[in-house]
C-alpha cells in the first residue's frame, strides 16, 4: 500500500491559498485509497500553473506543450493501454489552445482521465481571459470586459457524448476525492472540470463566490439520462451543480483495436521474419 509520503514531490510554486493545493492533496489521497503506486501511472500535462501538477507529486510525467496534453496522452495510451494515463490541464490549455483535441479525445473515447483545473483565467501569463471567463469580466487585456460567450465544458462534453462528465470544486475536497476515484475507475474518457479559485488573478470567481453557488447533485439523479444531463450541464450562475453530470458505457478506443487485444503495443516484440513475404509483394 502506498502512503501519502510516497507521493511527496517538488515544492509547489503556486501562490499561497491557491485552489491547486486542494486538488493536489485530494489527488494524492485518492491514489492512496485506490492503492495505485507512483510508477503505475503517467500524468501528461500542458503548460500553465495547473500543468506543473505532476512535478508536485510522484509519478511518470510527460509535461508537454501548452494545449497538447491530450494528443500526447492518446499516444501513450495507444502504446500502453495497461498504463493508467491521466491528463492535467488548465482551462486555457484544454479549452482554448487545445480545444480541437478535446473534441476528438471525447469522440475516440480513449481511456484517459482528464482533470481540468478551471480557474476561469490564464494564470501563468498573469490574468488574461480564458474561454471559461465570464462575460463582462474586465482584465488588462479585455478592457471592455470579456465580449465572447462563456464556454460551457459540461454541456460541450454531454453534446459530444463524452462517457464521463463531472464537475468538482477545489474547496470541497471530500466530494472531489470521490469524483477523482470514480473517474479513475471509469472505463473510457473522463472529463472532470474542477472549479479552482485563483486567489491572485481572478477576483470574481473566489472561494466565497463558488461556495455560495455550488451544490451537490442529489443522489437520486440518474447520470445516464442524456437529456437530463444536458439540462443539468446548462446550469450555471446562481446555482452550480457539482458531481457526476453524465456517464455512458461506450467501448473505449483501445478496446476496438484488434492488434492490441492480447497485449499492449509496447509489450509486442518486433519480428522481422515476415518481411521476406512483404518484399515479395513488390514483384
Amino acid at each position, binding site marked *: 500500500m502506498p502512503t501519502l509520503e510516497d507521493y511527496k514531490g517538488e515544492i509547489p510554486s503556486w501562490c499561497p491559498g491557491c485552489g491547486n493545493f486542494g486538488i493536489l492533496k485530494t489527488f494524492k489521497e485518492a491514489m492512496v485509497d485506490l492503492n495505485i503506486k507512483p510508477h503505475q501511472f503517467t500524468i501528461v500535462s500542458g503548460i500553465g500553473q495547473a500543468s506543473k501538477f505532476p512535478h508536485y507529486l510522484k509519478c511518470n510525467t510527460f509535461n508537454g506543450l501548452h494545449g497538447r496534453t491530450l494528443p500526447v496522452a492518446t*499516444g501513450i495510451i495507444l*502504446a500502453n493501454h495497461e498504463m493508467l494515463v491521466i491528463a492535467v490541464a488548465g482551462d486555457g490549455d484544454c479549452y482554448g489552445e487545445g480545444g480541437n483535441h478535446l473534441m476528438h479525445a471525447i469522440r475516440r473515447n480513449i481511456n484517459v482521465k482528464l482533470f481540468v483545473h478551471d480557474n476561469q483565467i490564464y494564470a501563468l501569463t498573469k490574468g488574461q481571459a480564458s474561454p471559461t471567463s465570464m462575460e463582462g469580466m474586465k482584465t488588462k487585456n479585455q478592457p471592455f470586459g470579456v465580449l465572447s460567450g462563456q464556454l460551457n465544458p459540461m454541456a460541450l462534453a454531454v453534446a459530444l457524448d463524452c462517457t464521463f462528465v463531472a464537475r468538482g470544486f477545489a474547496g470541497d475536497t471530500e466530494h472531489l476525492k470521490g469524483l477523482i476515484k470514480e473517474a479513475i475507475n471509469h472505463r473510457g474518457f473522463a472529463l472532470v472540470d474542477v472549479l479552482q479559485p485563483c486567489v491572485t488573478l481572478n477576483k470574481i470567481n473566489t472561494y466565497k463566490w463558488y461556495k455560495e453557488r455550488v451544490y451537490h447533485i442529489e443522489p437520486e439523479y440518474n447520470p445516464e439520462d442524456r437529456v437530463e444531463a444536458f439540462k443539468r450541464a446548462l446550469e450555471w450562475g446562481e446555482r452550480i451543480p457539482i458531481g457526476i453530470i453524465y456517464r455512458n458505457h461506450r467501448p473505449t478506443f483501445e478496446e476496438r483495436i484488434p492488434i492490441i487485444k492480447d497485449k499492449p503495443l509496447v509489450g509486442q516484440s518486433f519480428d522481422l521474419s515476415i518481411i521476406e513475404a512483404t*518484399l515479395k509483394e513488390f514483384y
Partner: protein
Amino acid sequence: MDYSIKIGGEAGQGIQTIGNTLGRVFSRRGYHLFTHQDYESRIRGGHNLFQLRFSDSPVMASRDRIDILVALDKESILLHEKELSEHGIVIYDSSALKQRYEKPYFLDVPFRDLAMEHGGNKIMVNTVATGAVLGMLKIEIDILVETIKDTLKKKGEEIIKGNINAAMAGHDFTTRQCQRCSFSTAPQSKPKMLIAGNDAIGLGAVASGCKFYSAYPMTPSTGIMLYAAGKAKDYGIIVEQAEDEIAAINMAIGASFAGVRSMTGSSGGGFALMVEGLSLAAMTETPIVIALAQRPGPATGLPTRTEQGDLLFAIYTAHGEFPRVIFAPGTPEKAFYLTNKAFDIAEKYQIPVLILTDQYLADSQWTFDGFDLKGIRYTDYRIRGDAFKDISGYKRHHCTDNGVSPLGIPGDSKHLIVTDSDEHNEEGHIIEDVETRKKMVDKRLFKKLPLIRQEIEPPILYGNSHPEIVITGWGSTYGVMKEAVDDISKNKDIAMLHFSEIYPFPSTERFDYLNLLNNAKLTICIENNATGQFAYLMKGETGYEFNATINKYDGRPFTLEYLSGELDAHIRRL
C-alpha cells in the same frame, strides 16, 4: 532498347491502373523501369499522365521523347503528340474521343467496343488498353494474365475472366492491326522488384520495427500512412489519423515516450504545424522520425506537383537550438535504407530525424534486383523490463559523458520517467537556474553533436574520379543527374556528387569532396527549386561556392532532355 510510354487522360479514367499494370508486367519481365506521375489536385477531369520508361539497362529518369502515347482524351493528343519519337505511335479510341485522326502514326483501337464485347463491361477499357500496348510491343500476354489474376484475386472468378478476355482482345487487335509497330523487346532473365518512394519509406518503417504512425492526410505524404495502414494487421502497427498535424506529432511523441518506435509524416503546410512538436521532441529527448514530402509552396501551392523547396525550412525550423538529422534519399532503395537509419539514429541519440522527399520521388516507381535485408539495423536502445528494474538511481535526463541518457519504459520498473518541455534537471523536473540550464544544453547539443556527425555518410561520387565538370544535387534529382552524367561522359570528364545525408552537413574527413570541387573547371548545383537552397547551405557550411546553378521551379521534375540541354549550354561556354 529504351522505350517510353505515356498514358494521358482525365482523372478517374484509370490512367494509374493502366500504368501500374504495365509497370508490373515490365518489371516481371525483368526490364529496368522508371515511372513517374503528373496529376492535378482533383478527383475527376483535368489532365493527368503516367509515364513509363523501360529498358534492358538501368533507367532512372523520364524522357521527353515517347514511343507510345495512350490517349484517353483529346487533350493528351493536343499536348503530347509533338513528343513522339520517329517510330512513335498514338493509340486512341475514336468512338470515345469522338474524333478520327488520319496521320499514319495514329492507331484507332476500339477500347470500349472490345471491352463490352469481350469483357462484358465497359469498365474494362483499361484492361483492353493495357493488352493493346503489350500487343504493340510484341510482349506475350501471359505475364499480364498472371498480373490480372494477382491484383483482382479478391474480386472473383467472373471479373478475372472478363478482364483476361478484355486484355486478350486488346492484345490481338494491335498484334494484327499495328503495321507500324517495330518495337523489339527481348525478355530479361529475372523479375525485378518495383517500388515507389512512398512505399519504400513505409516499408523501411515497417522493417525498422515502427509500431506507431500518426498523421493527417496530405499529398504527397499520404502514401506512407496508407502503406503503414495496409501493414497494420500483419506487423502490429497502430496507424492513427489524427485530427490535425499538431496532434499527429504529439501523439507520435507520446507513443515514443511510452516505449514504441513512432513516426509521423506530412508535407510543407502540415509540417509547419508540427514545428512546435519538433522542438518538444528535442527538449524531451524523445526519439521520432518525421517524413517531409515536399510539394511546391508557399501555402497550398501546387498540391500534387513537385519541388525541393523546403530544405532550409527543414534544417532551420523550430524554436531553440538542438540537434536534428536530415536525410534526402535519391531513390526508393535509398529511401528504404535511410528510413531504417533514421529510426536507428533517432533512438540511439534520442533526437528527431527527418526524411525529406518530394512528390516526384514519392510517386515514381523504380526497379531493383531486390533489397538486401542484411543492411537493416535493429538495436533496441530502450531499457525494458528486468533490465530497467535492476538499475539503481535512475534519472531520465542523466548527464552522461556522451550526452545520451538512459531511455526507460514508464511502468516497467519502480523508477519514474519524468520529462518536461520546460528546461529541466536530470530527474526531468522544471528548473530555471543558470548552471542546470547550461549543463542541459551542453548535454543535448554539444555532447551529442560530434557523435551524430560521425553517423553521416559523405556524398556519393559517380562518374570520372578526376572530373573537369562536377554536377551536384541532393534528394530526388539523383536519377536524372546520373543519367545526364552517362550521356555527357562520352565526350567530357564529368562526375556527379549526390548528397542524401544532408544534415549535420557531411564532413570531408572520409571523402574530400571540396577538393574534388576545387579541382574542377566547372561546378554546377542542380536543384528543383528557385533559390538554390543547397548551394546556399554548401556556402554556409563549407564556404564553397558553385560556378553555376540550374534551378527548375515550375512544379515539374527534371527530365533527361531538359537537364542535358541546360548542362550543354554551360559546358559549351567552357
